[in-house]
């Protein structure tokens, strides 16, 4: 049997999730399939594919890294920025702090990246 592409698996999982199936059940089935077809190594990539497919269907899971914790106003601004760029209906933001960035933010959502950190700018300056 030909292997099913990750894109197709992700499409199936997202359809199930958006149809209201319970995430735990869907993920259990996915895990069982991956173990059965000996594709457990691809788990990370499939998660990325699921995120991408979700984004295409209007739900964006975004991640923001900054040097200091962001105020809620800033977060809202970022959310609306992502929504405008990706055309998403809902944007879910996760946040992490990395002091080595010095300042600014790094926004990542499936397939895209906006690096506006002081660290990167300085690195580019030295080049």
């Amino acid at each position: 049997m030909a292997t099913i592409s990750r894109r197709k698996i992700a499409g199936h999982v997202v359809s199930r999730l958006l149809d209201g199936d319970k995430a735990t059940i869907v993920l259990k089935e996915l895990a069982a399939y991956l173990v059965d077809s000996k594709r457990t190594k691809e788990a990370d990539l499939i998660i990325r594919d699921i995120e991408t497919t979700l984004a295409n269907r209007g739900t964006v899971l975004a991640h923001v890294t900054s040097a200091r914790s962001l105020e809620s106003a800033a977060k809202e601004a970022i959310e609306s920025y992502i929504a405008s760029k990706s055309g998403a209906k809902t944007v879910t933001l996760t946040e992490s702090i990395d002091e080595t960035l010095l300042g600014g933010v790094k926004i990542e959502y499936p397939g895209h990246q906006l690096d506006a950190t002081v660290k990167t700018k300085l690195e580019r300056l030295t080049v």
Partner: protein
Amino acid sequence: MAELQVSELSKDLQSAIAGLEASEGLKDAGIVIRVGDGVAWVHGLANAGYSEVLQIDTPKGVVEAFALNLMEDEIGAVILGNDAQVSAGNTVRLKGTILEVPVGEELLGRVVNPLGVPLDGGPAIKAKQTNPVEREAVGVMGRKHVHEPMMTGIMAIDAMFPIGRGQRELIIGDRQTGKTAVAIDTMINQAKQKTGVVNIYVAIGQKLSKIAALVERLKQEGVMEQTIVVATGPADPASLLYLAPYAGTAMGEYFRDKGEHALMIYDDLTKHAVAYRQMSLLLRRPPGREAFPGDVFYLHSRLLERSAKLDDALGAGSLTALPIIETQAGDISAYVPTNVISITDGQIFMETDLFNQGIRPAISAGLSVSRVGGDAQTKSVKSVSGHLKLGLSQFRELASFAQFGSDLDDATKAQIDRGQRLTELLKQHQYQPMGIWEQVASIFAVSEGHFDGVPVTKIKDAQAALLTKLWTDHKKEMRELNNGTEKIEKDSPSAKLISKAAISAAKGFEG
């Protein structure tokens, strides 16, 4: 003084800060999932185009790659730098352009790699213009037939297999048969005859010592000012070897499109095909004949199609190509040689046997051909060399027949004698390309029979004596003859002049 420095410093700082403010904005991003053998497999980047440049962020800086395999789940990209820097998990961004190289006069006299980075220790190249490495060839209406000569300075080629500007003439032969020598002599001749043709020598996986020696020689001969060397060595990644001829052609096209004339030398396309085979196999494309991928014909046809003679409306520039192919044990029916033979407008076939017999350049009269150069041949050379190729081919056949030692009639003997003299005459030392007048006078003297009394071993000496005599006594006429426009007929003044000089030159060697 101190004040000035401070104000300059603050200017620098201000411009640096202004640069800081500019953000690169939102970019398409993916990640490297695995990497090895110069190929990176990338997840994401659904918007990547074929042959688009990707930038891989590594801890040691950005490494560029270009996307060649666009598949459902991943992208196969060939890395243009050191693949050891790239590791799985690195972020990959789209650059938004396909590969481009700097082009222009700034590159003349330089040795660069296929990305336009200087390798000669000189300053960075600040070209005003860059052109895409892969470009579509000129269409039908943009072309004109090949009609101007591209003199190689090698008598055997200019007389028998003339090359025209805009032609693609393959140089094919085993290793160590003088293929590169023909190409180099052609480059040197462009400087000696002051044709103004720009040379672009593309070394594909050539030993760096060989390239260094070549560059040194070109400098000695004064050719380097009108030459660009695109160099890749055996230690460079296959991606650079693959790019080299396309990058070189992009540099040549700049001159072609400006209405000037350029000469491309691809040394050699066998190594190019091998580099592409390596890339294709690593990209997991299915192998075909001799393990080459299915598109190895297209690989060379799209490259050589860019060499053209442009129409007057497009500036009448030209790009001539001399691709080189190395055969194994004279086998021209292998995959890549047959491909390139069918793509080009003729080939110059170099034979090991001839080379070992001391007939150098070792050009085979029977297997070589120039399919479009006839119209482009210099008039005066054409008028003296009409029967040369046929005579030489017939001689080779007769000579092998005569080996059986049977008694020969006088006519056959005469033909063999003439053939031996012609063969001897067409021998030529490396780095000594000949002008038009030298070629015309030499061929005329032998084919008119003025050297029939000279022993075969003395033909070269008699030729040298003739040329010296003509140059010292008739400089003005020879300069005129060198324009190549004059037809040499039996009773024309130039013919009489050459005949007279040849008869007197031959006298010194008869006996």
